[in-house]
């Protein structure tokens, strides 16, 4: 380029406020939260979920009747002393419901977190490393998918014990396959992108790339799937406890309460409808939260304007 030509005139770099400074950079989390809170059903779901969690965890502070107090008569109808009546063994149903809610929520959350972590790690490893590792993990996933979770869980709960953490552990150990498949698919696509190659060229190891590059880029689908996993876990755990192969008495869960009392549905409907309402609300709320999160993370398919 000839050097005697005049240099193009560049706008002077001004110091001080410009129009760009007025708009602050928005983090992804801020935008997601903002969109989430515009989703009315999702916010309602969140409110209900918080209420149910508060009911289960803070309930014992307000309602101090002991769960295992069987001093009352059997099947007392609802009264100020027992707002939800008593069970066949004379336990206060409100105290049982609080305890059952707490355990069901606790199990569902542990299962959701546990299965998500296992699924994401295995899926990302398979999708990123490909080849032999992918083959082993994918075949293992196929293998786990062919055996029904409820059967394996029933066998293992019976063999080990029906404490809440054992039920949660077993359900998580046999519930990560869907997440692993989704994560693997997304990782396969992401791993082709330039920023991953750049990270690898810069000498980043597998662990660094998975946890610092891949996972943050998949956080949307991971969160949504984890939320929906809570709903699934609530239904699996209650079903398992309902057929008597989940949480065992003297401890209790929403499914076990229904199992013990459903024969009374016509005679003493409150024994059934109490836990029923909590399960349905819990699972509805979590599904709505999941829907809201999906719309918030992926505005392209949103029904709510962001």
């Amino acid at each position: 380029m000839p050097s005697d030509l005049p240099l193009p005139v560049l706008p002077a770099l001004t110091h001080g406020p410009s129009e760009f400074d007025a708009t602050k950079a928005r983090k992804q989390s801020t935008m997601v939260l903002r969109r989430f809170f515009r989703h009315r059903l999702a916010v309602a779901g969140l409110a209900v979920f918080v209420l149910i969690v508060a009911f289960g965890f803070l309930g014992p502070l307000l309602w101090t009747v002991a769960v295992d107090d069987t001093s009352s008569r059997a099947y007392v109808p609802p009264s100020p002393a027992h707002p939800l009546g008593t069970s066949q063994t004379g336990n206060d149903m409100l105290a049982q419901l609080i305890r059952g809610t707490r355990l069901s929520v606790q199990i569902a959350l542990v299962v959701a977190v546990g299965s998500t972590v296992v699924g994401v790690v295995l899926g990302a490893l398979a999708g990123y490393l490909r080849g032999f590792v992918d083959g082993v993990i994918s075949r293992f996933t196929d293998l786990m998918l062919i055996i029904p979770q409820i059967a394996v869980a029933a066998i293992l709960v019976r063999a080990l014990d029906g404490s809440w953490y054992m039920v949660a552990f077993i359900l998580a150990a046999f519930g990560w396959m869907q997440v692993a498949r989704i994560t693997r698919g997304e990782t396969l696509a992401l791993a082709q992108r330039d920023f991953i190659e750049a990270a690898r060229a810069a000498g980043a190891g597998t662990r660094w790339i998975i946890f610092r590059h891949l996972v943050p880029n998949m956080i949307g689908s991971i969160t949504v799937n984890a939320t929906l996993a809570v709903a699934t876990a609530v239904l699996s755990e209650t079903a398992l406890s309902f057929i008597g192969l989940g949480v065992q008495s003297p401890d209790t869960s929403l499914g076990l309460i229904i199992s013990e009392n459903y024969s009374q549905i016509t005679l003493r409907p409150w024994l059934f409808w109490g836990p029923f309402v909590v399960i349905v609300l819990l699972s509805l709320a979590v599904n709505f939260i999941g829907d809201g999160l999906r719309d918030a993370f992926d505005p392209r398919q949103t029904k709510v304007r962001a």
Partner: protein
Amino acid sequence: MLRYTVRRLLISAPILLVGSLLAFFMVAAAGNPAAEMRGRPGVTETQVKALESSMGLDQPIIVRYWNWLIDFLGGDWGQSIALGQAKVDVFDSTMRALWITARLVVGAEVLAIVLGVAVGVLAAVKQYSIFDHLATSSAFLMFSMPVFCVAVILKSYGIQFNNVLESLGMDRWLSTVSPATGGFQGDFGEQVFKYTGTYLLPTLTLALVSFAAYSRFQRASMLETLHSDYVRTARAKGISQRRVIFRHAFRNAMIPVATLFSLNSASLLSGAIVTEFVFGWRGMGHLLVQSVRSFDPYMLMGWLMVTATLVVLFNLAADVLYGILDPRIRLA
């Protein structure tokens, strides 16, 4: 298509084999009837040992697996060794249970697909209408309902309905306890009466839950096709609304539903388990609960192998169906 099916079946065989090994180890580790005896009062260790050797439980686990596998492949699935019960043949009891469950599940699934697809299409065609909102909210509600709650509620309404019938001087119609073994007797009308009474509530329970998933899926997929370019082209050419919906959109919108059909098979099974539990059917659910309670290893293995094979077949069926419905997908 045939080559693909055969190859998929060949790939499934080793998965099932490894699955059987893991399942056998899990079942054996879980416990056995002889070990159950150990805790009971008045039972000596020699008695337990004798029981173990009579059941073949004293051999190393690999040997036991090998023996079981050879017998299993040869068609001898072993015998139930549950305590305090007559020794029954595993193959016979599993197949009997499977037959009972199949009649329940197939009816429910057909009902659910037909209803779900119809409601989904209608909701998509009349998007944001009252019908759509109603369908959406009821599907959401059914989604969040545990199957056992639906079963319990339907059962209680069934009992009340029967009481009403009885007070009107008629026979009780809906059966809410375990169905009579053997076929239905009587003339044709009587048979229909008994048949529908026996199947209505459990089938409805299972169908309602699957229906929610199918209608949502069908609605979403129908909306997508209705907004696609080729449907707009068809409309622009002046093809009637009815023809556009059924000939152009509907056929393609069915494709994703085929995937749901396979994904649903496992949840359908667990749904059947709790439904049977509530209605007292002696199908696969009953068999599982019984065998788990009594640590009956061969029965459990039979159960697991049957269900695992079914899941494999369902997945294969869905993939093949996918290829038939969507000519763009070449199964190779």
